């Protein structure tokens, strides 16, 4: 499976990474090379094999659905690039 420039543009957008138009052909080439390496997986007979969901056979733990912390707005916002009035601030989302 080879990736063309259009697919590379689409993948970059899905990943929310800006890639310059000029850089797309090189990116497509790199992605194609990695995917070609993965093609080997098609040699394996996986008939009737369940996809692994957990590497160790253990039940996921459940916890009580209770509040265990809170009231730490300052701590939560302390690393925000833009925080105002106790909120994260972002560019306008709705018109």
């Amino acid at each position, binding site marked *: *499976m080879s*990736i063309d420039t259009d*697919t*590379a543009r689409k*993948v*970059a*957008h*899905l*990943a*929310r*990474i*800006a*890639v310059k138009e000029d850089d797309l052909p090189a*990116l497509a080439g*790199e*992605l194609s*090379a*990695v*995917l070609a*390496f*993965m*093609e*080997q*997986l*098609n*040699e*394996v007979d*996986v008939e009737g*094999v*369940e*996809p*692994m*969901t*957990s*590497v*160790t056979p*253990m039940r*996921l*733990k459940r*916890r009580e659905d209770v509040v265990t912390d809170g009231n*730490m707005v300052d*701590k*939560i916002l*302390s*690393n*925000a*690039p*833009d925080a105002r009035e106790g909120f*994260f601030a*972002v*560019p*306008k*989302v709705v018109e």
Partner: protein
Amino acid sequence: MSALNQLTIAAARDALRKGETSSAELTEACLSAIEGAGALNAFVHKTPEIARERAAAADARIKAGDAPSMCGIPVGIKDLFCTRGVPSQAASNILKNFKPEYESTVSEQLADAGAVMLGKLNMDEFAMGSSNETSCYGNAVNPWRRGNDDTALTPGGSSGGSASAVAADLCLAATGTDTGGSIRQPAAFTGITGIKPTYGRCSRWGIVAFASSLDQAGPMTKDVRDAAIMLQAMCGHDPKDSTSADLPVPDFEAALTGDIRGKKIGIPREYRMDGMPEEIEKLWADGTAMMKDAGAEIVDISLPHTKYALPAYYVVAPAEASSNLARYDGVRYGHRAKLAQGDGITEMYEKTRAEGFGHEVQRRVMIGTYVLSAGFYDAYYNRARKVRALIKRDFENVFADGIDAILTPATPSAAFGLGEMADADPIAMYLNDVFTVTVNLAGLPGIAVPTGLDRQGLPLGLQLIGRPWEEGDLLNHAYVLERAAGFVSKPAKWW
């Protein structure tokens, strides 16, 4: 007695308990070694104030007679671990200036045991790399050199700073993390010991996530006994990590009996790769002979799906990474790109991630995005998860046949020069993990032990793979190998 920063954890512990030295003295010795080792670029955030404060507290504890083994021991912490109030960037520009308000469970447990944090250690960005060349801090450098040749060599990756710091005696030990070989490969490249425990042994809480089903923390130390001591302090159930194993942690140091008579050591034929350097072949054969001389039975085994481990890994790990790294959006922490007039939220995401992530991270996030996208999910991601199940079954079969441990090379070569792989395609770099990645896919414990030097004088290591949750037995096998190999070489100081 050797210089204080050259001590093992065990030797320092014993000296501390006898009152022959203090944590303050050990800590100062390490801090001054770090000051003199800028050329290695191992420590990227130094925390001397925290170190001195903790050393004083440790000395008080030792005086009071309440001293666990790690009490007063100066260690380095990989930058992937969140440490309260101290930069924790995963070697990425996207986490520039990030200072967590919380502490990872593993580093907290070490601190509770009295360990002294000296600072944060260099690594590949988000632990994606095998040479420490993807770091936003620049390359960490291996203290070892090829004879008199002054070419700068890689310490391996992703835990390259940890490996370099331990090998150069800048600290007594360091934490590492291992997703596809990131503890074991750098340990082998620098002549130190590194163990990745069974998946679930160490809590992942507060460790910046790369591929959650593969990531495990572990110690990087000067010998096997130290690995046992430090691993003990790092392990244990943590309710904050739902995949953390609720199992008792045995006394790993007590497992080091040095007796492996009657144990069955598997030698997997699929690990004998085409074009494997003769030196690696010989190292492996020598290690096999050492285990046999120690009274173990050597058994040829087959792990038939080994060949497919790397391609499966390079589907599963990027898929998980693309999901985990979605959180870096420029909103809650880390870098946010400067926006142009009229830019909306999508431009903010796209510019922030383009500026903040390095090239290898971008590539892996996009590969992961692709293999998870509609239409390809079954062909790539589900197929890789099925192959992963088969790889795990290979190991289960040999363990069911009575194999106690598996002996393999740790890496396909000795440390290579920084920049030497720059023009190679990414797959060539990925091959560094060919012997280690199976262990992550199967969730097993694995340890790298230095057992020899190549003809250029660089360290080489062997890997032992153990049964799940049997780290004690695995460490004992490694202890036997270590004693038989008698590896005592140290890099000549040039930095």
